[in-house]
């Protein structure tokens, strides 16, 4: 039998597949439409978090279900990765959850787009916010209206592997410490460990616990008040990157491959894999790895040691609970928010899984049953919020991050990485950073 590859058969099959493949999947995936909220009888609630947080939420909601048998709650939960991608898709597809855990960094974007329901009309009636301070509520307030109930006090802090530090014969630094103290102890960790461990994970590209505080110590906010511009100068960022370049040079901070691997992946965090003792990532507690049996401790983000340095720390609202505007069950969602804000069993169930509880009453309710690490965490948060409250020179708490903020945070991360990998000089990367950031904020 001769070979029979007819031009027509092959051509037809190939072009058919080509068209089906490219058009069908790529293009169709991009179309969307806008619709309204879900209207199944159940109330859907979503959140992100760790397994412990999932369990705590479910336990508390079971109690709520017993007290309010008419409200049927369907829960969906996951890690933070992809949580908001999914929320966006659900909103666009008309199947948004009724009640969701919201990020303080994103609440302004969603509120201004009309996705979230304003809660002011419920406050003082079905929503009891007694004991919530005004600065705390600011975290859920956008343009004068309340769009989310804060779960607790969130502060910017470093997590320290204290056992690791003690094993090397080093002492936990004082809470009133500066950036040069950080550099000193991080370098000591590298030397005393015989090069086995670096000191602190690379903070040059990390915004929230890190660069934002540094800029505020210089008297510069990260975003301008109207959110249309960057609030800090090129000099500030240059000084920052040079500080971290020095840290990497002295092995006080790990090389970029470790930093890059940890991006969006807590299990690869330098402290979790045992390659550093200090981290700016606030989520490592409970991540296991090298710190499974270690005693952790917490420190405020370091202070500026130049003349005229200001208080850079601030207090935010942990995570928020928000209701969607298209939902037909906003009133029921508010009941659940109220339950988490004031009910004693809910407060005890949630412990510190959503930050330090927001009210004095809640804090005293849980303090007795807390584990050692939780107590240290709460003590440090208390310390920071008191210091911030007393400071006369602190900038006001940051404005809600504008649209595109997450792109700029990612840009900062990538820029620092490009410098660390030696692909770009600091000078060249600076101008590139400001060009791109401006175009993101303008668009």
């Amino acid at each position, binding site marked *: 039998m001769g*070979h029979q590859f*007819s031009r027509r058969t092959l051509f037809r099959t190939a072009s058919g597949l080509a068209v089906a*493949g490219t058009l069908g999947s790529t293009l*169709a*995936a991009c179309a969307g439409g806008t619709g309204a909220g879900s209207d199944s009888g159940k109330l859907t609630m979503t959140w992100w978090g760790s397994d412990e947080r999932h369990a705590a939420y479910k336990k508390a909601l079971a109690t709520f279900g017993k007290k309010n048998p008419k409200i049927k709650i369907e829960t969906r939960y996951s890690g933070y990765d992809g949580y908001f991608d999914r929320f966006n898709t659900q909103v666009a597809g008309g199947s948004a959850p009724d009640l969701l855990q919201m990020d303080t960094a994103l609440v302004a974007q969603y509120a201004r787009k009309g996705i979230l329901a304003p809660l002011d009309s419920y406050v003082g009636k079905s929503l009891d916010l007694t004991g919530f301070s005004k600065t705390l509520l600011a975290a859920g307030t956008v343009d004068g209206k309340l769009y989310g109930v804060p779960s607790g006090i969130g502060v910017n802090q470093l997590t320290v592997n204290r056992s690791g530090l003690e094993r090397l014969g080093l002492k936990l630094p004082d809470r009133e410490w500066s950036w040069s103290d950080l550099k000193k102890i991080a370098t000591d960790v590298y030397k005393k460990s015989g090069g086995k461990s670096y000191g602190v994970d690379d903070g040059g590209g990390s915004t929230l616990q890190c660069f934002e505080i540094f800029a505020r110590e210089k008297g510069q906010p990260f975003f301008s008040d109207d959110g249309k511009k960057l609030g800090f100068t090129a000099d500030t960022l240059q000084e920052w990157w040079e500080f971290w370049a020095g840290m990497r040079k002295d092995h006080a901070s790990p090389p970029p491959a470790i930093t*890059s691997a940890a991006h969006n992946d807590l299990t690869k965090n330098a402290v979790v894999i045992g390659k550093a003792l200090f981290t700016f990532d606030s989520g490592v507690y409970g991540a296991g790895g090298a710190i499974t049996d270690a005693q952790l401790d917490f420190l405020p983000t370091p202070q500026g040691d130049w003349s005229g340095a200001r208080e850079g720390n601030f207090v935010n609202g942990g995570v928020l609970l928000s209701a969607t505007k298209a939902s037909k069950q906003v009133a029921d969602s508010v009941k659940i928010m109220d339950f988490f804000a004031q009910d004693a069993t809910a407060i005890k169930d949630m412990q510190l899984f959503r930050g330090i509880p927001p009210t004095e009453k809640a804090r005293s309710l849980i303090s007795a049953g807390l584990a050692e690490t939780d107590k240290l965490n709460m003590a440090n948060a208390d310390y920071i919020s008191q210091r911030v409250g007393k400071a006369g020179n602190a900038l006001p708490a940051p404005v809600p991050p504008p649209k595109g903020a997450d792109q700029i945070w990612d840009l900062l991360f990538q820029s620092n990485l490009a410098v660390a990998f030696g692909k770009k000089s600091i000078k060249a990367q600076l101008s590139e950073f400001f060009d791109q950031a401006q*175009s993101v904020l303008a668009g």
Partner: protein
Amino acid sequence: MTTAKSDEVAGQGPAAPATPADRRERERMRRRAARRRGGGWWPYLFLAPWFVGLFGLTIYPMLDSLYLSFTDFDLLSPAKWVGTENYSRMFTDDPVFWDSVHATLLYVVVSVPLKLALALGVAMLLNRDLKGIGLYRAAFYLPSLLGGAVAIAIVWRQVFGGDGLFNDFLGWFGIKGQDWISSPDSALYTLVLLAVWQFGTPMVIFLAGLKQLPKDVYEAAAIDGARPVTRFFRITLPLLTPIVFFNLVLQIIDAFKTFTPAFVISNGTGGPLNSTMLYSLYLYKKGFTDLQMGYASALAWVLFLVIAGFTAVNFVASRYWVHYDD
């Protein structure tokens, strides 16, 4: 986004030759169909489910995305017409776009030839009458079945990570490895390796092609004293060019659309330093993470045009190197 559409071809193979009896049968069918053409809405009724799918799930979303590509659309509020702004921004004001174009072209240019070469090589090894050959064929095809799976990409992440199997393996030879996934110079090549490893689909097609090659030519060549290498380059390859071409077209299209491994291995970031920011991943990030669905739609259409362009060039070039028998 579906992957490995090309898998469907595997079962079909090249068309069987038509015998005179076949032709007579076909002619009869055609006449019968012509007779019925008068009362013609019945067929459409039966086709309706397919049409609903075609128009509702493919054509309409496609046209919609063409419209959206000229708008500023954030998924959550109505789309605003902006003309060609998305397209001009792509080419003049978006460095990450160029990073993704660079990564994607590199990925296509490196992975496709390697994959095809490996597929052909293994197909030739498997094209013989050994005991249990079916088992071997299945074993080599297996990776492709796992192909687009998230699980495999996760495994890859572990194997090529800093403390992964690959570095353990290098350690046996005293070579100190690095974190291959986290270094901007090597991350893309871990994706290439994953793609090459999944050579099963083109391999099966090559195998089907090899089986159809005429034995008499080889016998003649053997009598003339042609060595295996000569036989491969002078007989096998030229006769197989239509299959090579077919695989080439499909694999290039597939490679351009690669999404899952890049997404999983880089943890959705396309990093380090955008070195694994394959085009589809960038498109996804723009649309679903940065909420720039209008821009993402424009990106999709540019990808479509680029793929169409590559395919057209492929077809034109094929006139000079592909030999058909008809």
